[in-house]
C-alpha cells in the first residue's frame, strides 16, 4: 500500500532518476515517464509516456468508397517501396488508485490513423508478452482469467483525464510488490529512496504482463 503523497514522491523521483540513464532492457520500463498534474485540481498527478509497438497480425481495413478512387502521381524510381506501417502507439499512464491505495497501470492504444484498437487487437500486439493471456477469456471490453475475482484487463475512465482507457486491475500487483520488498529487506521504504524502489518494483511486476521495453 502506498499513500497518495508517497505515490507523488515516488513518481517524481523516478522521473528524475532515469532521465539520463542509457536505455537497456533493465532501464527502459523505467525510462521516458513524465509527471503531469491535473489542469486545475491538486493531488491528481500521474505519470505518462508514449511507446511504439508493432502489430503481430494484420487487422482488417475499412472498405471505404473513398479508397476506390485513385490519384495519379508521376512515376518516381527514387521512391523506395513503402513497407506497410505497422506502427502502433501506446499511451501509458501510472495513476494512483484511491480505492486500492496502490498505483494502477492505464493505457490506450491507437494505430497511425489515431483510431483506437479493439481489445482483441490489443492483445495481439507487442505490448503484451505472448504468454500473458494463455488462459484468458476475451470479451469486447475485458479480459478475464479463470478463478480470478477481477478481470485482468478492463475498460475504465482515466481517473484524472476522464478519458476511456484500458487498465490492469491493480489489486494483485501491490501484494506482489510488498512481498518483493520484504525479500529485499527494505525496512525503510518510506524514505524517498525506498519509495522509488517501491515504484520500480511495481513497474517490474507490471512488466511481467506488459512489455514495457518496447
Amino acid at each position, binding site marked *: 500500500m502506498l499513500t497518495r503523497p508517497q505515490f507523488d514522491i515516488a513518481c517524481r523521483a523516478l522521473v528524475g532518476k532515469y532521465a539520463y540513464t*542509457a*536505455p*537497456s532492457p533493465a532501464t527502459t520500463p523505467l525510462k521516458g515517464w513524465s509527471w503531469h498534474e491535473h489542469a486545475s485540481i491538486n493531488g491528481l498527478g500521474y505519470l505518462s509516456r*508514449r511507446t*511504439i509497438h*508493432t502489430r503481430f497480425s494484420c487487422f482488417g*481495413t*475499412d472498405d*471505404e468508397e*473513398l*479508397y476506390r*478512387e*485513385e*490519384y*495519379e*502521381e*508521376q512515376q*518516381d*524510381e*527514387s*521512391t*523506395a517501396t*513503402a*513497407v*506497410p*506501417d505497422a*506502427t502502433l*502507439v501506446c499511451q501509458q499512464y501510472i495513476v494512483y488508485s484511491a480505492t486500492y491505495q496502490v498505483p494502477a497501470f492505464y493505457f*490506450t492504444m*491507437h494505430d*497511425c*490513423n*489515431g*483510431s*483506437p484498437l*479493439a481489445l482483441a487487437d490489443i492483445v495481439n500486439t*507487442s505490448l503484451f508478452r*505472448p504468454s500473458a493471456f494463455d488462459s484468458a477469456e476475451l*470479451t*469486447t*471490453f*475485458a479480459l*478475464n482469467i479463470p478463478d480470478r*475475482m*477481477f*478481470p485482468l484487463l*478492463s*475498460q*475504465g475512465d482515466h481517473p484524472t483525464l476522464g*478519458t*476511456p482507457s484500458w487498465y490492469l486491475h491493480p489489486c494483485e500487483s501491490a501484494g506482489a510488490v510488498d512481498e518483493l520488498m520484504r525479500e529485499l529487506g527494505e525496512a525503510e521504504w518510506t524514505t524517498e529512496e525506498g519509495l522509488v524502489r517501491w515504484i520500480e518494483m511495481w513497474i517490474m511486476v507490471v512488466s511481467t504482463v506488459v*512489455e514495457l*521495453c*518496447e
Partner: protein
Amino acid sequence: MPLALVQFTPFPSLSHPSFWHKLTQLKLDVLKLSDAQVDITGSYGVGRLIRDREAGAWISVNANLAVEEESFTDTKIPTRSVAARGTLKNYNTIEEFKAADKTMLFNECADKIWESIVTNKDTSLLNSFLIITYADLKKYKYYYWFAFPAFVASPSWHITERGWVPAIQAGFSEAQMSSIYEQLLGNQPLQAFFVVLTPSDASTEVTVSAIDAYVPGATVGFIDPSAQLQNPGWPLRNLLAYLRYSYPDSMSSLDVLSWRDTEIPREGWKSRVGSLVVGDGSLSKAAVVPNARPNAVGWEKNVQGKLGPRVADLAPMMDPTRLANQAVDLNLKLMRWRIVPSLDLDKIAATRCLLLGAGTLGCYVARCLMGWGVRTITLVDSARVSFSNPVRQPLFQFSDCLNGGRPKAECAAERLREVWPGLNASGYTLSIPMPGHPIPVSPSLCEQVQQDVEKLEKLIEEHDVVYLLMDSRESRWLPTVIARSKDKLVMNAALGFDTFLVMRHGARHTLDDNSRLGCYYCNDIVAPADSLTDRTLDQMCTVTRPGLASIAASTAVELMVSVLQHPRSIHASASSSSSSNYADIIDVEKTSVLGLVPHQLRGYLAQFRNLHIVGAAYDKCTGCSEIVINAYETEGFSMLLNAFNDSKYLERLTGLDNLFAEGEKALRDVEWIEEEEDNDF
C-alpha cells in the same frame, strides 16, 4: 559496375487521437465553415531497430511524421525530435474533400519549399508537409491525406558500390560520434539538417553546424526517419535539391551522414554514411543544374497501398452512445464475474418490457430495468405530466408540466433515452378501458376504444413482460386477460399508504396444475368493477409514503429478474422465505441463481417487513380463469365490451355471483395462504 540508384523511404504519417480532438474543437470554435489554411507543426525522430523478443531478429521501424494536439497551438516538439512545418486545409463536406484540387495544393506547397531554397537560402521549410482533412463530427470519422513534397532529382542520385555503411566503418571514430551526438542532442528540437566539419586534417574534433556552413568536401547530415539499412529517409531529397541548387559546382559527389541515434547506443552506433554521386556515371561532370523548380512527388499512400486518403475512426473512443453502452454492460458484467458467475445477462437485456403506467411506479421500474441492461422499454399512459408529478416521479421535471403538460408516456421514454441513448424506449398515450366503466353509446367512441384495445393487444404481443403499474385497480383487468391469453409474464405492483403488493401472475400453461399461481384478481370475490370497496391495495387515494414506490418498483424488477434466471422461468413454482422452509432456499426447483422466486410480496413499511405469500389460481377468477380467457379468445372485442358496459357480466360469466349469494363470510376463507411471518431474510 554500375552505381545503384538511391531510393528514399517515404514518410509514414502518424496522427495521434489528440490531433483529431483538437481539429474538432478548432472546427467548432474557430474555423466553423471556413476552409482557410491553418499552420501546424509536426515532428519526427529517427528510425529505429527494435529487437523482436521472440525471434531475436531486428525489426526496422521507420519514424513517422507525427501530429498531435500541440501541433495546432505551439511548437512544443517532443524531445529528440525535429520540427516540420505543415499546412492543414479542412473541408466542410466529403464532396468538397474529394473534389479538392490536389495537384494545385501540392504544387503550392512545393513552390513554397522551392522559394525558400532560391530566395531565402534557408533549410527550415525543406521538410514542409501538407494535410487535407474532412471531419465527420457526427460519426467521429476523420478523412485525411498527407503530402510530403520532395523534389525529383534529374539526373537521379546514385550511391557508390559500398552502399550505406555504419558511420564507424566510414571513418568516424567513437569519440567523433559521441561528439556529434552531444552537439546534436544538445539543441532541442533537433536540427533537421547539418554539416559535420573537421577543422583541420590533424584534428579528430568535429563541429556540427548549420547547413550554410557547408564547404566542398564536408559531410552533410540529416536526422533520418528511415530505419531501412540501404534507404535514406525522405527529408534527404529536399536537402539534396537545396545543395545542388546552392552549390552547383561541388555537387557531383557528396558524403551524407544519415543520423539515427537519439539515445546513446548500447550495441553500436546506428547512424550510417553513404557516398552519393549525381547520375549513374554515364553523364559528364557538368550535369544539368536546375533553375526552374524540379518536379515533386510525395502524396502518402493509404493502407491499401494506393495514393488516396485515409480514415481515422474515433467512434469507439469518442461516441458517447457507444461509450455509454460499453459502460452499462461493463457494470453488469462486473457484477456477474464477481458475484454470480452463472447469471444470464443476455437474457435479461433481451427481455422486452411493457410498462402500463408511467407514474411514480412506472418511472422507478424503468430506471431499475435500465440498471439491469434491459434494452427495450415501452411505456403506456393516458395522462399528461401535472405539477404534482415531478417531485415523486423521477423521470419528469417542472418544465414538462407547462402548457398543459407533456404526455407522460412519451415524455418518460424521451427521458430514458437521455439517460442512456442506447435504450430502445418508446411511449404511447393510450387509455385502457376498464370493466364496469361503460363505453358511451357513440360509434366513434366505440371505434376509438376498439383501436385502443387492438393497440394494447399488439403491444403485449410484442413484449415479453407486462408491468401493471396503474393507479387504478380496474385498469389492470384488460392487460391481465390479454397477457394471460398470450401467456406473458405479468408483474404487478400496487401501493397503499404504507403497504405495497408486488406479485407475478401465474403462467397459463403450467405443467403441474395443482401449483398454478394466481393473478391479481384471484382473491377477489367481486369483479373488478367496484373500486370503492377497495380490499387490496388500490389507490382511489394515491397518498403513499414517498419511499414506498421505489421500494415496490425495485422489488418488482428484482422479482422479474429472479424469475427470468430460474431454469423454469415463468413456470417456476413459488418459493417461500420462512426460516422453517429453509429447504426452499437450497431447493433448486424453487430458487434461481439470484435466490428465491416468490409469488407475492406484501410490504409493510410501518414494520419494515415483507411477507411472502403464495396464492393459488382461483378457477372463478375474473382475471385469469379459463372461462374468462376462453370467452375473450372466442368472442374478442364484443366480450370485452360486455365486460366494460355491464358491471355484473364478469361475475355472471365466472359464477362469482352465485358464490356471492352464498354469503360473503364463507368466501373470506379463500384468503391469502400466508407463510410464516418472519422473513427479514
